[in-house]
């Protein structure tokens, strides 16, 4: 029974230079207790999907498709229902925690605000108790509730954001690059924390990052995005070890494998840059950079097709892919 189901989500921003298609038809599902990772370079649309799921996109952005949470379409919810659902069912943890926290309010107050929004009748004492227990759950002393954001370190702020996200016991947690702004040791700690919380609360998570290696550690399934589309999807270890899409292969290869001297000495990067969303190439968007490109790739844009057990990939080389013969 799927908890969250995204169907053909398409998002286009409106800017002074014209419409920018950030997401061009994304479809995926999330089961209860599952963790799905979304990977891709900057600008591929992964953060847009996160914002779209909470309907936090700027006014005027064109959104189409369906986002079904327990059967209800988030995109067509009335404002009152949407506000009730936000945070209590779907919560989000952003990156760059200094700016995600209000600098002139105490940290505890900000967590408390979330609680009070969704539980009107709760007493002040109960709120304080909840804040204390939330902070402790993320590994921070309860006294930290009276601190201001600038008094905390980067790692501590990220933990506060996680505590805040859990404040209303959501069913789905979206983590948008939660460790990107942190140094490696702290990254590891935060990831550990997320894993613990996941199992303790049977949380379903969507983990968004550009760091593919992280995803294999945290997530059961991965979706790889390129130029606004999901180009591959499947169980994380399989996707990482035997990628079906050349882009995934390139991402995976960019990380030298420990113990493998060859990859350490010559890490392979991918030449070129992701395409400008306002000027997408015809056919497959990855064709200009693809090492396995063929002529028909430039005219035919492959959709996601089954590529094995619970796996899908959008490439002409997938055996089941239909294309012009």
């Amino acid at each position, binding site marked *: 029974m799927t908890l969250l189901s995204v169907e053909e989500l398409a998002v286009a*921003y409106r*800017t*002074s230079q014209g419409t*920018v298609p*950030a997401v061009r038809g994304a479809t995926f599902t999330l089961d209860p207790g599952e963790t799905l990772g979304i990977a891709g370079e900057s600008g591929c649309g992964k953060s847009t999907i996160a914002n779209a799921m909470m309907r936090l996109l*700027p006014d005027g952005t064109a959104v189409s498709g369906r986002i079904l949470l327990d059967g209800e379409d988030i995109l067509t919810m009335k404002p009152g229902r949407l506000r009730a659902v936000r945070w209590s069912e779907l919560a989000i943890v952003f990156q760059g925690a200094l700016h995600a926290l209000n600098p002139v309010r105490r940290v505890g107050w900000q967590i408390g605000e979330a609680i009070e929004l969704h539980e009107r009748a709760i007493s002040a004492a109960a709120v304080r108790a909840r804040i204390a227990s939330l902070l402790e759950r993320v590994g921070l002393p309860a006294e930290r509730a009276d601190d201001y954001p600038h008094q905390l370190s980067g790692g501590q702020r990220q933990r506060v954001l996680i505590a805040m996200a859990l404040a209303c016991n959501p069913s789905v947690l979206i983590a948008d690059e939660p460790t990107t702004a942190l140094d490696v040791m702290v990254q590891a700690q935060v990831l550990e924390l997320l894993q613990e919380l996941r199992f303790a609360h049977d949380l379903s998570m969507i983990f968004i990052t550009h760091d593919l290696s992280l995803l294999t550690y945290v997530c059961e399934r991965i979706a790889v995005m390129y130029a606004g589309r999901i180009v591959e999807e499947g169980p994380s270890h399989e996707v990482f070890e035997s990628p079906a899409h050349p882009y995934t292969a390139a991402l995976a290869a960019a990380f030298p494998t420990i113990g493998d001297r060859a990859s350490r000495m010559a890490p392979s990067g991918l030449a070129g840059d992701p395409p400008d969303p306002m000027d997408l190439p015809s056919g497959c968007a990855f064709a200009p950079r693809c090492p396995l490109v063929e002529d028909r790739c430039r005219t035919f844009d492959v959709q996601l097709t089954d590529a094995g057990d619970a796996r899908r990939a959008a490439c002409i080389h997938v055996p089941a892919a239909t294309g012009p013969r």
Partner: protein
Amino acid sequence: MTATTSPPTERLASRRIAWIRRRRALADLWRRFRRDRPGLFGLVVLTLIVFMAVAAPLIADPARFDLLAVRDIEEWQSPNSSHWFGTDDNGRDVFAMFVHGSRVSLLVGLTAAAIAIVIGSLFGLTSGYTAGSWLDRVLNRVTEWFLVIPFLPLAIVLVSVLDEPTLFGLIKPGLGVIVFVIGITSWPGTARVIRAQVMSVKERLYVDRARALGANDRHVITRHILPNVTGLIVANATLTVPITILTESTLSFLGLGDPTRQSWGRILNEAKQAGAITRNAWWYYLPAGIGILLVVLAFTLIGQALETILNPKLRERES
């Protein structure tokens, strides 16, 4: 560790590159400015008024407001074909006064603003660069102190009292005094803003790196700090002019301006004295005020446009 000097040809080449880069930056600035419609409107209005001020003697004959020459002209005429803005209580042509009055308002406004900017920038740069030192503290106290002095009363007092050339004969009674007074009371705002910016630039990493590479103070100031601060100085300058112009017109209105010259503030003063309010001679008191309004508005719009362009934080968020 001193940097090795590069051969002259290389230096020339790098200087040309810098020039080209600067020209391109200016062209880019102009292109961005053009897109800001209020700013453009301000620029157009300002150009028209400046043109009017510069060509004043050609547009309107000063004899039309010479008291002796207009003795036979009918007073209090409302606008007609021979007197576009009508006449005042002495028969003087209001349009001619208006056109010539623009000169003083613009001249004083711009010169005083220039003085204020120069003093303010020097203070701000020095203070910001030596932030935390005794020099900074002293300069800060002086700035604060100037901010504290109520400037209009000070201006009034100084103007009414300085009726002889002072300060090595540079400040003469009349316009000189006014320019001096307005200049020295308007600079603290600039100084503060510049100081804050210099301090923030100084803390940026690339300045540290430049130092690690052996850059001396002069290099850091000219190559790193100045380029980042110049934009702010320009934007601030454009926003200081409205203040100086309003101050000048207020002083003239209060009767403290230069009595030998026309100025918009003075026109309004004379209008009030002549009883234009009681007669509702709108052609007398409206134009000068609208003139001040337009000039101030123009500079404010241009200044805001520049500020938006040169301050990345204010720019429209490009997703």
